[in-house]
């Protein structure tokens, strides 16, 4: 049965909301919970993940003709680990404070299921152009997801956004729990519920 392979534009739009890595695919939860205490670490993590995702997709797409079934996961992992090391070193060299704040979560990008699944689903089967579009779309979706959670956590937890004061400390008692692990879980759970609810409402109105 001939299947319609998604075009570059379709892949790109897909990644942002319809197949959002966090809200729809439930991938990459570990960094989503860990680095979203503030917008700055969240966006740095999104940038690092985007770098690894895009580069890995490009390389895998270029060598997709040579990949054999047995070894492809090995090749994906090797490629991803290399780019994560590069991203980690670059961060340590140029953004030392942020690198310390992100700590072990940058190397954990290696086991972020999102990247391996994109390599498997898209770039090992389609050309570089589509692969890049897919990677960029997914990265944007990931960044959007991280931003949504980080915004809630940072504004409620510290009254700031990107470090700039938003809610004056005099009338908003900062919700310390938002900066701690429980706040991360609760925020993500409730936002997931919200996303589900919006999705179901859309389905109802279009049905």
């Amino acid at each position, binding site marked *: 049965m001939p299947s319609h392979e998604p075009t570059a534009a379709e892949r790109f739009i897909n990644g942002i909301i319809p197949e959002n890595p966090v809200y729809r695919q439930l991938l990459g939860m570990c960094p989503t919970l860990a680095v979203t205490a503030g917008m700055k670490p969240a966006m740095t993590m999104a940038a690092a993940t985007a770098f690894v995702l895009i580069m890995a997709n490009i390389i895998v797409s270029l*060598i997709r003709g*040579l990949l*054999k079934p047995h070894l492809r996961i090995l090749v994906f992992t*090797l490629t991803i680990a290399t780019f994560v*090391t590069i991203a980690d070193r670059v961060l*340590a*060299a140029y953004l*030392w404070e942020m690198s310390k704040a992100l700590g072990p979560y940058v190397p954990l990008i290696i086991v972020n299921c999102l990247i391996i699944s994109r390599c498997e689903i898209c770039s090992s089967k389609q050309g570089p152009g589509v692969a890049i579009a897919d990677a960029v779309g997914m990265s944007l979706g990931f960044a959007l997801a991280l931003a949504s959670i980080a915004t809630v956590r940072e504004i409620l937890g510290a009254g700031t956004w990107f470090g700039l004061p938003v809610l004056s400390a005099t009338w908003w008692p*900062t919700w310390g729990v938002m900066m701690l692990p429980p706040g991360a879980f609760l925020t993500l759970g409730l936002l997931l519920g919200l996303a589900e609810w919006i999705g179901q409402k859309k389905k109802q109105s279009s049905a």
Partner: protein
Amino acid sequence: MSETSPKSGYLRQAWLVILLALFYGAALAGVQVTLGPRIAKNKLNETYEQVPKIVPGADQTKTVPRTVKGEVDGKEYSVYQAFSMGGDHVGWVVPASGQGFADRIDVLVGIDAPLETITGLYVLDQKETPGLGNLIVKNEEPDDFCNRFKQLQAEPTLEVFKDEPPPGSNGIRALSGATISSKGVANAVNSALDNLKGPMGALPDRPPSEPAAPTSETDKREDD
């Protein structure tokens, strides 16, 4: 793809992995060579940048790293000897670490040259409770936590009091709601000073002829 025997099939597949491994290895080696020195400098600068702030009169570029063997635990530690612009020995910076409420707390203690009076404190790393324990990093106004260590004596052992320290005692007032974090910092300072004060006192008072202290303005020195 034509049917080849499994063995040569695996061999053909393996060459791709080996080629990739070599290529990536070279890329990583390149990254290490170009960025490695910069990263090491960042790490050292964390300490060196604090030296003038916690030892009054010290010049960052004149700081000399030393290694001493602790008299309590026998392990080797790095300490930093601070000199002024004119070359006078103005004090020491001792890295200390101890168990806080949540995890380890790493601090830098500034102490004067005769190893008697504490001149400053800087918290390098901590994971204490936001809003409570993590206020130990504050060192701005006259009374903020780090500044409470100034002018304390190295002997007798530092204590932590819930309210104002009684006159004549050698201690600090704990952060309200964060007694354990405050005690963690004090314990770190105490154990480091107990362990290293003796060996540090035995070190020479003059810098060696070529102090090898990196500074933050290294772009002029790098020849890339």
